[in-house]
């Protein structure tokens, strides 16, 4: 019998045939390979969050191999000498072991923590981009809502992770979380006692947070992220308005090869930044905080940055507590309820329904695949900046004791400054943003009407000085440029940068205007390669 020769070269084709016979994949794969994606730097912000999440899964899996959330008290006798002989929970002891007894454990722990901070930071920055460009409008309202849920899930996930090592800082955080849960009317004590399995801190909370942290919340996160990215595929990405870019097309490049290569490279860069931070910037030195004891606290106790705005709102809240009697029994509605339960509720609901409010107000039922430049929707931009400034005041107030201490400001003055700023700054931000947006828009309209400033000053016979403008449109016989409509495109500001598709600046720090490319040598069969030039 003739032995069949194994042909390596035919292997890919054979495999492809085998796969296609079973899955009928050739058509869908072609569609995927050819799918066109628009390219803009701001479209890559969400990817930072996605890639951080992947890093979190990788590093987190490593950590679970060495971490034990047990709250059983042990006497530490591990590698970290300055804590030997101390009573601590097993969870804290294993966290110390990860840091000092597991080779490479510290860098993985730090990368995990930095990736968590990066995950939420990227989500927030990405969310700002979506909001200010109007990418949440129909048909993408659902993805906006999912994105918002992703933020809050990430918030929960981060807080659970922050609590797990059971150091003094995380214990203090849990204690405050107890105070927040207790403040909920009617069910507060029930919720708290049920979650902690009795009185704070009890013996079960870390086990419960652990399973939430490594299974429940990541599972939901993973599912929602899949839907989030899937919807971007199905609905196709939005794009900036510009020449040739319409509401019914996507202008960009095919997913393969160049777009996918860029994504892969960017993932590596995000990973590199996380590794750099994880190795060279110390984060959460639990060995300095010590084990959690109910009587121990450190000055400057803060949550991670994404929870800090709630800490700030709690610090700024005046001491207003409602106490009243009903049927002979007294009831209390604590001050902490408003900034930590009601405020996050408002901060969830308002953005959730914002797309619908805006559409209703504008009586807008059409689909939007073109983004708005922030200046073109001054009201939304101003509202957004109002929200951002509100958030930033809370965020800064969350660290106001550190600021007070390091910059020698009175702590009480910092609190009062925050209380006043939270009322004054957002309306101010609204007004200023609104004016700036209108001003930028006006400037663009002027450029369209008169052309680009050339910097050439001409003296008229009557002695007046005028600047010569280079018209953007053809001029009529009187030298007046034809009328150009304002359609929300980027308007050129400088000479020789006409339109978004024109030759752009090369280099980021050092713009080099490239001269016009030389004509291709006639000898080349240029037709074959380059004929699709429009």
């Amino acid at each position: 019998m003739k032995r069949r020769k194994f042909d390596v070269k035919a292997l890919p084709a054979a495999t492809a045939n085998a796969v296609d016979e079973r899955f009928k994949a050739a058509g869908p794969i072609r569609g995927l390979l050819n799918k066109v994606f628009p390219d803009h730097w701001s479209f890559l912000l969400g990817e930072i969050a996605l890639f951080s999440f992947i890093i979190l899964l990788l590093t987190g899996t490593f950590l679970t191999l060495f971490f034990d959330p047990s709250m059983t008290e042990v006497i530490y006798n591990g590698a970290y000498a300055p804590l030997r002989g101390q009573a601590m929970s097993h969870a804290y002891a294993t966290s110390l072991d990860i840091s000092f007894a597991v080779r490479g454990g510290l860098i993985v722990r730090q990368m995990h923590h930095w990736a968590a901070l990066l995950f939420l930071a990227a989500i927030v920055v990405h969310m700002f981009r979506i909001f200010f460009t109007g990418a949440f409008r129909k048909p993408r309202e659902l993805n906006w809502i999912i994105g918002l849920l992703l933020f809050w899930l990430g918030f929960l996930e981060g807080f659970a992770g922050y609590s797990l090592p059971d150091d003094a800082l995380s214990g203090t955080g849990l204690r405050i979380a107890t105070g927040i849960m207790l403040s909920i009317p009617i069910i507060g004590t029930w919720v708290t006692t049920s979650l902690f399995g009795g009185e704070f801190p009890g013996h079960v909370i870390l086990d419960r947070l652990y399973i939430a942290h490594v299974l429940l919340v990541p599972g939901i996160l993973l599912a929602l992220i899949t839907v989030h990215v899937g919807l971007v595929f199905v609905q196709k990405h939005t794009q900036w308005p510009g020449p040739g870019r319409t509401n019914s097309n996507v202008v960009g490049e095919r997913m393969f090869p160049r777009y996918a290569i860029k994504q892969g490279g960017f993932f590596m860069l995000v990973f590199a930044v996380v590794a750099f931070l994880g190795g060279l910037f110390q984060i959460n030195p639990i060995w300095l905080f010590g084990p959690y004891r109910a009587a121990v606290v450190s000055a400057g106790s803060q949550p991670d940055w994404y929870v800090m705005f709630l800490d700030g709102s709690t610090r700024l809240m005046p001491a207003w507590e409602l106490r009243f009697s009903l049927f002979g029994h007294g009831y209390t509605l604590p001050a902490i309820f408003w900034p930590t339960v009601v405020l996050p509720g408002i901060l969830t609901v308002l953005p959730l329904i914002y797309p619908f409010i805006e559409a209703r107000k504008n009586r807008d039922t059409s689909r939007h695949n073109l983004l708005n430049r922030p200046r073109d929707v001054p009201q939304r931009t101003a509202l957004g900046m109002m929200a951002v400034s509100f958030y930033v005041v809370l965020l800064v107030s969350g660290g106001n004791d550190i600021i007070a201490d390091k910059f020698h400001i009175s702590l009480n003055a910092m609190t009062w400054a925050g209380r006043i700023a939270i009322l004054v700054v957002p309306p101010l931000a609204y007004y200023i943003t609104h004016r700036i947006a209108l001003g930028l828009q006006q400037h663009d309209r002027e450029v369209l009407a008169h052309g680009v400033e050339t910097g050439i000053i001409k003296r008229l016979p009557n002695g007046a000085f005028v600047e010569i403008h280079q018209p953007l449109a053809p001029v009529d016989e009187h030298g007046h440029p034809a009328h150009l409509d304002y359609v929300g495109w980027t308007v050129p500001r400088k000479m020789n940068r006409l339109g978004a598709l024109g030759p752009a600046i090369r280099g980021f720090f050092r713009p080099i205007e490239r001269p016009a490319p030389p004509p291709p040598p006639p000898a080349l069969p240029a037709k074959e390669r380059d004929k699709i030039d429009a």
Partner: protein
Amino acid sequence: MSHEPGHGTPAVDLSADNLTNRQILEAGLRRDDIEIVHYESPFPVPGTKAERRIERLVAFLFFLAGAGAIAFVAVYIWGPFNPDEYTFGSGGEDWYTPALGFCLALALFGIGMGVLVYGRKLLPHEIAIQDRHDGASSDDDRKIAAGTLGFIGEELGIQRRPLIKATLGLGGLGLGLAAAAVPIGMMIKDPHPTAEHPEDPYFETGFNPRFNDGKPVRLVREDYTPIRPEDVSIGGQMTAFPGIPGGTTNEFADSPILLIHLRDNDAQTLRSNLKNYSKNALTNPSDPNSGSMWNNFVVYSKICTHAGCPASLYEQQTNRLLCPCHQSQFLITDNARPIFGPATRRLPMLPIDVDGEGYFVAKGDFGVAIGPAFWERPTQ
């Protein structure tokens, strides 16, 4: 520019022989309504100096990645790491993690940048336009979907069978309740004292004599040594715990207290202020120890009435107690009145005395709820 992408792509006869890959790609693009309107190789002439420079750059970046990765492995294996002992000033060990991070970042940076430079500089630039085809389905499709669902509804015929509809609804509701009841029932715990568990987590601390066979509970340090009055200097403060088994552990997380030895005039001020607070005031005006204070000593709960952090930043001259979490400030000489920040209620005072052996004891429990407020907390 064409507004009908794909239509600008020339039709290709796929049955023809000798088609280039490019031609086949275009056949596919046409099917996906894609048109490439601009396609430009960055180096139309292969092998120019500029192209070779980019190639060398990419190669260098990949080499860097490999070198970084090998360095990472080398540091990982032979770096100064002692899994058995870390002491302050361990010297070389302190650069173990930074070195790992630097090598790993270098390796990843090299790979990432290499790939990016390759993709950005060596691959052809293109501008492709694809039709979106978004929006609702065609009228026919919608009609068919609605009709199909309608027919399925008729097939099921649940509308015609009200008995089944009602019982199914009931059954579904019951199952839903059951599904919810199990996890809730597993976790739920009554926060209030019941016959089965008499302890009251929100109103009771380790200073309740119940934990000490009905005898007053001593104040102890974190190592369970009892405290004599002379142990705390004037202007000093001490974190203390109930002297019961487990009293200094997190089992009694509501119990930590702050024992403060006031200066004489501050103590006078406090004593004179106490008469407004019947719980802590002197019962016998001539006996300075008949109230909750003992001589110039006063004890407050360390658990902040705002969110439960230990309010323990004691300023011995201004007699303020600051909570580091949300900056509530309490005036010690006025029965721990909150004077700044979000806290609304005073820190509860623990009535103290000195027992026959000269150690501090609690006369009784606080008598009020410790720590953060909650709904059913009485409005004292």
